């Protein structure tokens, strides 16, 4: 698929063999080889064309119950040999940890799932056609209202990647995947107030990607409804999260459910397995097998066949997201949730992580709120996963008598994730996959809104 490196499996296997030859007790290699094209069009003209070739080989080498990690983009034989030796040396210096080791053989017993992750449609487009997608997306975001008078640009990007895994107990596999995306970022101005918003669509298959017209129109709708925003007086009210901000909320739940955070006891979900941590309306799943999921994959970063895991069922915490290390450490079994950013260490984390939709419409949820906040944007880093403290900047629309009445900004919403989860009073039916983590509209019974 990507020219240049024909046999990645062979390279992965031979690097594992090299590690064993220099004295490793076990070893694994993960290779990511990708090619990305992106373009940005601003005010009708091409602003940027970029192409990025990225390939990286990561290894983890064990010396009994000790291990070390490395990665490189230098694939020359001499450099790889040096990296293998350096990693082996580091593995001799790290501490002995009884939970350390290559995943046990039984985790590989299941057959790899057959998933369709690679779609060739975007790859067959010429650069001019990709520019045209971005251009028509920007046009759709700009030319629907005179108050939209500027643009930060619209863009199209597509990438393909091959992921290859091999280890010293004979596992070797690979897969190809594709992804493309389209976004628009219009600016609007009215009475001296400038606002900006965006919409982004992402899909593995270009032929199923939201159209440029839809993406542009949604971005325009979002920026226009922000015009005239003001702060509100400090109060304590029901808060409705739209799917985009609900997904941001869910990201914190995924981080808190990560085995890596739990091993460090750096999560408010520590020691909570089997207990009611959320309201009964809440069921959260991690599913690496989801058709067209952006986080779908046949195996995780340890080569373990993917699965679907219910993390919270009807409010009860049923499982963490575990890689083989955190699973051993916590006395459980890997859920095939090892993620490895190739420049860093593997950690347990989500694949496709979502909150199951309920059966009320977003309109019904808003309609039931007499006086409250509809949040469409969250900014800042005011989330503490250890204590659960949550305090973030927000923007959105004020709900008055069950209707969206005026835009608000320069406010914060605050609470504690533990309380927020248990006070989710309604879950919408509008689940929309906006990324690897997604959620429908949510209603949280009461939060403190801080403003003027």
């Amino acid at each position, binding site marked *: 698929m990507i020219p240049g490196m024909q046999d990645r499996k062979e390279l992965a296997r031979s690097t594992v063999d090299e590690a064993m030859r220099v004295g490793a007790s076990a070893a694994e290699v993960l290779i990511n080889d990708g090619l990305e094209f992106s373009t940005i069009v601003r005010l009708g003209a091409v602003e940027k064309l970029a192409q990025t070739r990225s390939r990286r080989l990561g290894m983890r080498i064990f010396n009994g119950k000790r291990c070390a990690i*490395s990665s490189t983009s230098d694939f020359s034989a001499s450099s790889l040999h040096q990296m293998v030796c350096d990693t082996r040396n580091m593995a001799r210096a790290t*501490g002995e940890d009884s939970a350390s080791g290559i995943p046990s053989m039984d985790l590989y017993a299941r057959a790899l799932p057959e998933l369709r992750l690679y779609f060739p449609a975007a790859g067959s487009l010429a650069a001019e056609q990709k520019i045209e997608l971005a251009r028509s997306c920007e046009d759709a975001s700009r030319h629907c209202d005179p108050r939209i008078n500027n643009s930060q640009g619209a863009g199209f990007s597509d990438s393909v990647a091959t992921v290859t895994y091999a280890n010293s107990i004979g596992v070797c596999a690979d897969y190809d995947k594709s992804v493309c995306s389209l976004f628009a970022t219009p600016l609007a101005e009215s009475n001296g107030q400038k606002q900006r918003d965006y919409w982004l669509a992402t899909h593995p298959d270009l032929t199923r990607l939201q159209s440029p017209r839809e993406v542009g129109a949604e971005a325009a709708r979002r920026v226009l409804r922000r015009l005239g925003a003001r702060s509100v007086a400090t109060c304590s009210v029901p808060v409705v999260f739209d799917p985009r901000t609900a997904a941001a909320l869910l990201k914190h739940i995924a981080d808190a459910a990560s085995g890596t955070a739990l091993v460090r006891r750096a999560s408010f979900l520590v020691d909570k397995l089997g207990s009611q941590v959320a309201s009964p309306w809440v069921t959260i799943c991690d599913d690496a097998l989801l058709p067209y999921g952006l986080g779908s994959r046949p195996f995780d970063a340890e080569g373990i066949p993917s699965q679907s895991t219910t993390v919270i069922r009807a409010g009860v915490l049923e499982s963490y997201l575990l890689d083989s290390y955190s699973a051993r450490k916590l006395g459980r079994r890997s859920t095939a949730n090892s993620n490895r950013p190739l420049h860093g*260490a593997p950690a347990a984390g989500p694949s496709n992580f979502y909150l199951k939709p309920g059966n009320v419409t977003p309109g019904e949820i808003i309609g039931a709120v007499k006086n409250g906040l509809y949040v469409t944007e969250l900014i*800042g880093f005011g989330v503490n996963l250890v204590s659960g403290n949550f305090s973030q900047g927000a923007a959105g629309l004020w709900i008055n008598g069950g209707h969206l009445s005026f835009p608000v*900004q320069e406010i*914060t919403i*605050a609470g504690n994730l533990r309380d927020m989860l248990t006070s989710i009073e309604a879950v919408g039916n509008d689940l929309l996959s906006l990324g690897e983590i997604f959620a429908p509209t949510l209603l949280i019974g009461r939060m*403190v809104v801080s403003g003027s």
Partner: protein
Amino acid sequence: MTSGKTEQTSIFADRFGVTLQDLDRLLSAAFTKGGDYADVYLEYRTREMLALEEGMLKSATKSIFQGAGVRVIAGDKTGYASADSLEMSEILPAATMAGTIALNAGPSSRPHSANRGSPRNLYPAVQPLVNLDLAPKLHLLEEANGAARAYDARIAEVRVVLANELKHVLVYSSENPAVYDVQPLTVFQVSCIAGMDGERQIGIKGGGGRVGLEFFEAKPPSYFARNAARQAVLLLSAREAPAGPMPVVLGPGWPGILLHEAVGHGLEADFNRKNLSAFSGRIGQRVASELCSVVDDGTLPGRRGSLNVDDEGNPTSRTVLIENGILRHYMQDALSARLAGTAPTGNGRRESYAFAPMPRMTNTFMLPGANSPEEIIRSVDMGLYAVDFGGGQVDITNGKFVFSASEAYLIEGGRITAPVKGATLIGNGPEVLTRVTMVGNDLALDEGLGTCNKDGQSVAVGVGTPTLKIGEITVGGTRR
């Protein structure tokens, strides 16, 4: 690279055999279809991360990043292509690809090629930590772990991380001769979790810069460790933060992140050139109280945000952003400066060879004023004193910014009283500095942990401020 000196000392020449002729070939390929400007950026970076948990070296990671990026500018259009390789056979196609942006934009100025080393050395680290043996580095981790655990019986978890990198860069452009720089960067960070009666809190402290082992003589690991442990324990007894508008006093140092978010991003030239910023078109206007002067200075020795040259090969500088309340200058990269007809300010930075540069901050801080910190605190009847922050974010278009306090106290009757947790500040960038009513005489820069993210690219930055009083800003807590 005509002079023998760089030819001998550059890792790109020594290890990868990249010659001056190669660089000229890349620029020629980039200019195939014309264009106004082109540059080649070569990078070779090694990074190691050591993490101590449960009292043992739990994780040891080493990474090598190598690659090249070629950029062509034609008018306000940018073509960019990168390769994860320093082999000419892989960089040359990238150069040609980047050149397709120009689409017959006309003939270009010919590159001139004379060598220039980096003009000064702001980070003469005797020995970059990444090249040292493991033993002295392990000692730093263990010292911090011991000090944190000894601080208080309520400290339940301690994690200590030492991350070191050494980045070789070579920038060659159609306007500047080849510039080669070797940039060390070290971060040392201690996280402590304290627990009591089911309540759990985290304290995080650390520091670093473009420094060697000598950094830890002035600031030993135990200094950061005790401070992180103290913060975690303090938060166990902290009250819920108040909610609503009130006077806020920022402590010296890292709270300068206010300047980074509230005004810094809004003064980056790309946003202003495109009229996207709340500060667009406001040069010469009053944007802050006359007590406020804010600078961006990439020339401070050893600081995390400092560089001999930026990622376009231009020397970094000290840029006055706001002088006595008046907006003076934006931060420029080569593209924005060219389109504005002004000089670059050495603020063109990129995360790596995989990205085109943008205007970015270096070390951004407010100059000291006349008041003592004590008299500033005394002047507040009821308000918040914030001394440490997690992170911040800004919407540069409407100017709204937030930043989250990780250590803050109530001020009652002119005295610092109870610690509070979970306080986020939200304000309006163009407005907040007009509300500064007192500026302290105690300017401090941060310890060296700051990382700034813009358009998906992370770069190391510094911030700083003296003690600062803001007459009124909204605090987002839960206690009404």
